[in-house]
């Protein structure tokens, strides 16, 4: 758990969801969600595969159709120009150009955000791969290129869909540390994962199951409410309590 920082005492919500329902192909994927993502904090989005994590992230990014209810992103409507200027979005499958080098990918996304590459490659530990073609990288390295392209332009809101999946434990730890630093710098982060153990790196977690929110709370609240430090066990108890 990360120590509280001064920014958190005066936090505002970067994202507010009210009674959000998403229908895909005649099926309700998300039902009646009300939740928020605070500025200057890392909010974890946890739930099993198929619980609706990616759909929720896509809805906030403004690319999901079939959305009902209210989504407020940085005081604007999702997909508006004001939001797009301040948004970093990493999709679940690495969406970068295979036939460009790492640096060329990052430079392109920096250019369309009107920014510089800066230290983005160092932050995702890819500086030694800068001149390699993405197609020659491993899955985990590609995911980090995708993450790097989401970080350029210093976005106020970062939507990261499973950024740590398939990475070795050391790198996972470093990335969570990076997310914490970005939050301290003032960004709001919504980070999805299906590994509940990673909830301990978050300031707050949203637990999703079958398209519904089980709970939104801090990891400490989760432990006290369920009487266990084992996050898997806590999740099970929460569901059984309902």
């Amino acid at each position: 758990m990360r120590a509280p920082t001064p920014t958190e005492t005066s936090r505002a919500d970067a994202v507010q969801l009210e009674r959000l329902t998403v229908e895909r192909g005649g099926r309700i994927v998300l039902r009646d969600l009300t939740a928020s993502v605070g500025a200057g904090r890392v909010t974890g989005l946890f739930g099993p595969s198929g619980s609706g994590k990616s759909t929720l992230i896509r809805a906030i990014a403004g690319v999901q159709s079939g959305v009902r209810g209210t989504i407020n992103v940085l005081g604007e409507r999702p997909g508006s120009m004001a939001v797009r200027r301040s948004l970093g979005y990493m999709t679940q499958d690495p969406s970068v150009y295979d036939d460009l080098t790492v640096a060329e990918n990052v430079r392109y996304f920096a250019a369309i955000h009107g920014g510089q590459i800066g230290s983005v490659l160092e932050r995702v530990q890819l500086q030694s791969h800068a001149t390699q073609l993405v197609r020659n990288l491993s899955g985990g390295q590609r995911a980090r290129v995708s993450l790097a392209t989401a970080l350029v332009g210093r976005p106020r809101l970062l939507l990261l869909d499973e950024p740590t999946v398939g990475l070795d434990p050391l790198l996972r730890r470093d990335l969570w540390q990076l997310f914490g630093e970005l939050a301290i710098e003032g960004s709001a982060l919504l980070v999805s994962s299906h590994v509940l153990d990673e909830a301990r790196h978050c300031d707050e977690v949203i637990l999703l199951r079958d398209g519904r929110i089980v709970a939104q709370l801090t990891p400490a609240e989760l432990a006290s409410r369920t009487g266990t430090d084992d996050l898997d066990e806590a999740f099970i108890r929460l569901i059984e309590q309902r």
Partner: protein
Amino acid sequence: MRTARTLATARRVLLQLRHDPRTIALMLLVPCVLETLLRLIYAHHRAAFDQAGAPLLAFFPLTTVFLVTSIALLRERVTGTLERLLTSPLGRLELLGGYAVSFGLLATTQAIVVSALTLGPLGLRVRGPVPLLVVLAVCVALLGTGLGLLASAFARSEFQVVQFFPLIILPQFLLCGLLVARERMPSVLHAISDALPLSYAVDGMHHLSRQTGAGGAVTADIAIVLGFAVSALVLGAATLRRQTD
């Protein structure tokens, strides 16, 4: 800012191609081989070569750019980079502008290389101004970008998108006046050919090869081709929907 994003996109598309030198080589060499082949086929029919050689110069950029654009944009749709771009400040027209600029440059290079060979060593006789020939080729390339973009919207895989080539391009080839002059076609086919952009590109090339001082007629043909190209690009832009299922 707007132009900066368009140019960044054009640069990115060109960089992607630069990492694929074989594709560039094929784009430049294949039309040269085909024009040479045509010259050899018509070795004893110089007039026939003059007749067919120039219209083909307009046909090459259409095929090349159509194929490259449709596959490149299909990839953007399938790999998720398009979704990613649509959540960024890059506008849809800026994205298309980037593609148009990069493929326009490519088509210019192709047109210069192929016409240098065809007008030079192969001895194709053209009476009109040669720069207009290159301008026409570039407009046809923009048309190829627009049509390729449209095709990519209706395909789910590279197999499918390639099948749009015989559907969209070959009928235009048959009706454009290269095989049979459009005036001599049955009236229904003539009317259909009037609605197809390649017909005007070929008309323009015919004007260039047959008449001196055909600048006015060619300019009109170029304007029509350009009109089709812009329409296709705008229609194509409408297929770049931000919200998908």
